[in-house]
Structures are given as C-alpha cells and as structure tokens.
C-alpha cells in the first residue's frame, strides 16, 4: 500500500468499513489530504486496485458463457424433449418414490443411527461389540447386495412371526406379502444409512465437551434430560452438516431401488429411455436437473438448521444469504461511488 500514509490510517479504516456501508461519507482524496488540515486518522483509505482479479473474472465468465451456449445449441441434448419429459407424470411419480424412500430412510436411518451410536458408547461390552459389528458389516456390504438379499428374503424365510413390537405374538406374516417393494427399499436403505448415521452421531456426541457432561451430572439432571436437552442439541451442531452430506448421498442411492423393482426418478427415466430410445439423453438431463433441485433444497434447509443449532456457539449468528446479498450490494455501491469520487 504505497499510497497509504501510515499503518495507523489503515487500521482505523478497516475498523470503520462497516459503518461506511450505511453512511457513505464524502471521501477525501488521499493525495491532497495532507494539504487539507484534516487529521490523517479521520481519512478513508482507497482500496488497492486489483486488475488481475478483474481479468480472471472476465475469462471465467467467457468460459461459462461458452459452456452454456454449447448446452443450449448442441442438438445432442434435445431440449424440446427435455421440456416434454420434465413434468411427465411418470417422471413425477418416480420423483415421488425417490422422495418417499429418501424421507423414510433418512428418518429411520437417523433414529437407528442414534440407537447404534448409544450402543457404541455404552458401558456394556456386549452392546458395544454388537453395535460395532453392525456398523462394520453394513458399511462393508454393498448397498446393492443388501437390497437384493432383502428382496429375495422370502427364499430364506417364508413367514415372519412378529412378537413384542406388535403385541404378544399375534400372528405370523406371509413374508412376501408384508415386504412390499417399498418396504424392502426403505428397510434396505435404512439399514445401510443407520450404519453411517451411527458414526456421524457418535462423532457428534464425542465432540461435546466433557465439562458439559460433568456439569449436567453435577446438577443432578436426569439421564434422559442430560441427553436430550444438553448433549444432543450441542452434538447436532456437528451432526447436521455431516448427516446432510449423508442425506444427499442417500438421495442418489435411491437410484438403486430398481433392484427391488421400484421405479424411482432414475428408474423411471431409464425405463422410458428404452421405450423412447431417441430420448435417452434428454431423460438423463431431466434426472440431473431434478437431483440438482433436490440437493439445492436440502442445502437451503441445512443452512437454516445449522444456523439454528449455532445459537450460543458463536457470539453472533452468521448472516443469511439474503442479508449477505444485501450487504454485498451496498458494499459494491459504496465502492463504486468511492472509485468515482477519485
């Protein structure tokens, strides 16, 4: 910063940058300022010009524009067919299956994960060993194998008799009737998901400071209360981003449910691709865009959930994207005005 008269000035300027957003001041020219009788400390510093950054930005914009242009004009992508397929009932039905399977597996997987994580952290060596083995096995076995195995479960067990959970052994089911494709898909994905969720939850619980456990214990808070109100809310701060990551993986894992004869979003596109073989490419694009939309929605939800669990963890909450955009715009405006003033 050769034009900067001294460090005292730049320090002061950095401190007051935020004020300048709301109250753009009239800017003294740095070169002429010493002639005025204004004290140095009262002056604003002109930001450093960065031409390299502008050039890089321009290059990137041109490349992006070319890619977009290519996407639009290349006949290979058949955008008219894309438009035809995007809201077709068969695609939307597939989307519905994807959402249903994902939602159920995400919830069941998380609940299962919490139970297994508690098992992993339990004092009982048996519970620890069983839960460790579960995680080890389910993370090792490919999801496809889990699905195929469950789908053909009836080859191994013709009937299931159900005891305690549904009441004292009231009946036995014909397994193949109980296990509809949807049930099989949700169970398969949940079993798989629970193994990963268990590690995420366990990591979250371990990330909570030991002092928190001690403080809760010293206050004599009941065990369940300690977990639900003290440990879990703090653990969720680190669980959330990891589990959302897991969830996005899960959304895409649902494309394997055709192994249990269920048509999710991808399956629907696949099967339409063979009936209408000329439309394979636009169908794949339809699927891609839908997955992009789903992931975006999840990311937005993640942002707000994380913000919620950040209460108290930082001195002030991070700004929302809208707040950031507003701040960025007014920042830009101030800068332009400042540059223009020179």
């Amino acid at each position, binding site marked *: 910063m050769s034009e900067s008269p001294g460090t005292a000035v730049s320090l002061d300027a950095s401190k007051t940058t935020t004020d300048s957003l709301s109250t753009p001041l009239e800017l003294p020219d740095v070169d002429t300022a010493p002639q005025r009788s204004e004290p140095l400390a009262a002056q604003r510093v002109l930001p450093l010009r960065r031409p390299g950054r502008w050039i890089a930005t321009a290059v990137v914009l041109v490349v992006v524009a070319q890619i977009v242009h290519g996407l639009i004009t290349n006949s290979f992508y058949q955008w008219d067919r894309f438009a035809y397929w995007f809201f077709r009932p068969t695609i939307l039905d597939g989307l519905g299956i994807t959402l249903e399977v994902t939602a159920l597996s995400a919830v069941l997987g998380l609940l299962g994960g919490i139970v297994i994580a508690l098992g992993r952290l339990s004092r009982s060596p048996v519970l620890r060993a069983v839960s460790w083995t579960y995680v080890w096995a389910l993370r090792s076995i490919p999801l496809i194998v889990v699905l195929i195995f469950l789908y053909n479960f009836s080859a191994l067990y013709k009937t299931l008799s159900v005891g305690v959970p549904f009441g004292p052994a009231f009946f036995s089911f014909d397994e193949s009737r109980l296990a509809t494709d949807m049930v099989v898909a949700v169970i398969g994905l949940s079993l798989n998901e629970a193994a990963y969720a268990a590690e995420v939850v366990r990591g979250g619980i371990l990330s909570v400071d030991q002092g928190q456990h001690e403080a809760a214990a010293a206050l004599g808070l009941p065990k369940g209360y300690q977990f639900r109100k003290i440990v879990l809310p703090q653990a969720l701060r680190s669980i959330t981003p990891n589990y959302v990551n897991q969830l996005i993986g899960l959304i895409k894992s649902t494309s394997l449910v055709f192994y249990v004869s269920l048509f999710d979003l991808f399956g629907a596109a*696949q099967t339409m691709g063979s009936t209408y073989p000329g439309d394979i490419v636009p169908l794949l694009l339809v699927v891609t865009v839908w997955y992009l939309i789903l992931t975006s929605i999840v990311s937005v939800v993640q942002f707000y959930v994380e913000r919620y669990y950040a209460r108290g963890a930082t001195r002030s909450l991070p700004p929302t994207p809208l707040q950031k955009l507003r701040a960025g715009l007014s920042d830009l405006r101030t800068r332009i005005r400042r540059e223009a003033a020179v």
Partner: protein
Amino acid sequence: MPTHMSRRSLTRGITAATAVATLATGLAACGGDSDAATTTDAAGTVTVGRLSNAAATETTLKVSEVKSIRAELPDAVKKSGKLVIGSGTLPSGSPPLGFVGSDQKTLTGSEPDLGRLVAAVFGLKPEERRSTWENLFIGLDSGKVDVAFSNVTDTEERKKKYEFASYRKDDLALEVKKDSAWNFDGDYENLAGRTVSVGNGTNQEKILLEWKAKLAKEGKKPLTVKYFQDTNSTYLALSSGKIDAYFGPNPNLAYHAAKTAGTPQATRIAGQFSGAGERLQGLIAATAKKDSGLAKPLADAINYLIKNGQYGKWLKAWNLSGEAVAESEVNPPGLPLDNS
C-alpha cells in the same frame, strides 16, 4: 460415569424406532403394485399389443380355459388361482419384448402378452412381476415367480436349475450407427478389430466370447467386448462412438433402430445370427423352476395356442412372425455346455 448413556434411555430409543418402523410398514402396505395391460375378461378374450408405442398392432384374441391342460398344473398353482409371470426387464425395459408402454406406466410387450394368453388357457389370473434380470432367476428359485416369459434362451447350463417350454426362435442381431459402413455378413471374422457390447450373463455373450477366442486363436485383430449396466448406457456408448456395435436380441434391436430413425442417435441393423450358435437354432422358452411340473402344461398350452391360431396372431401383432416355431417342446436341446 457421566459420559455414558444409561441402558434405560437406550431401550426407550429402540422402542421409538420400532414404532416408526411399524408405521412405515403400515403406510407402504397400502400401495398396490399390479397393473397388467391386458386382462382376460369373462368372455375369454385377451388383447395383445396394447400401448406398444407403435411396436405392435393391438389385436383382441379369443382364448378359453382348457380343462385338460389346467388339470396338468401343480396343485399349488391351481389353488392360488393366479399365474405369476416374471419379466426381467428392469431398470430399462426391453422393447418390444417387455417394456413400459406408451401410457408411460403399464407393462406391455410380446413376452408378457404370451404369458397372459397361456394364463387364459390355464384359467388363471395373470399377475405381472417386474424385476432385474438377476432377480428374475432368484425369484424363480424363491417361488416369488411361477414362470418367466422374458426372452430367456434355453441352454444346457440353465437346464441344471430350470425347465423350459420353448415358444420362439432366438435370433440375434448386430446394431451399428446409421452412418457406419460395417456389415456382419454372417461371418464372425468381420468382427476382428471391432469393439462390441453385449449383455452380461446372456446367451449372446457366450457366442460373442466364443468368436473372440476363435479370432485370437487365428491370430486376427482382437475383438474387444464391453459391458454396460443397462441398454440405455450401451446405446449412449454406441452413439458416442465408444463401441462399434451392439450384439443383442433381434426384436429389441429392430425396435430401437426403428424408434431412433431421424434422431441424432439413429442406428441400423448390420446383420443377424441364430441364438444357439452355428449348428443349432436357438429357442426362447417359458422358464420355470426345475421339477416344478410347469414345463409340460406350459408346452401344452402354447401348442394349444399354436394349433388354434392365437399364437400366429400374437406374433403377427408384434411383427415377430419370422421367429415363429412349429411347436413348443419341453426342454429342447439348447446352447451346449461346452460352447464357451
């Protein structure tokens, strides 16, 4: 130690999870999953070639139950009142043999249609089950499916576990990009130096691998075989030039070539071949678990349909008359075991 969770809270967690699982079961059980494109109505008619996306001509055929053939069925099947027909065509369908029709939700195709005709002869209600190709066979093993009508080729290898009633010739074809100058001309030597894709675990794969071995032995340029997860991926590879040709069932390839005409992915058929190698005509057969006692009644039902004309009309409706057989046989000789 305060760091650990008590067993009591753990048990509570498990109970809650179980409750949710129960709820989910209850919800999902409400959805039905049977949607047959064709039904046998009270008057004894079966409509074939429905919703075919122009692959077939919709035709209504008269079929009535034949008591003597029904009597041959195993008691369990008779008692269930339905014939569970397996179609191993997931995730991408296999038009015109088995695929989702032009209403974009119903299973149609020449194979399920024949299954329905056979069910009508048996006096049973047809029930479709779609699955992946692998699950089709596991489904036969586990009893989930009674009989597969899914372009299954009769081979000696498969006879170890399954029994067959043949119903159609197995003709294979090679499909290339429309602008490709290459032709098969019935001579495998033309494949030297080419890259060809084939379905994993299929009969045509065995044939292709045999050609590959022969070419290697003769010191010709090698034939490269590539596999893809499903036919859509195969066709993407074909149109992008990653493979020179796709070797598959003739009806599928003919449908694909017809449907892509005029699109950027246009293709054509570059030659045909019998599905049982050079010495034998390959046969497509209705497939049931070995010793299930279904092959005989299946063959009798198909022969009944051949004799009474419905068989010919069915093939004609699907433009497959060229693949007609004179009669259905129980466990006819298939692609030999040593053919690999």
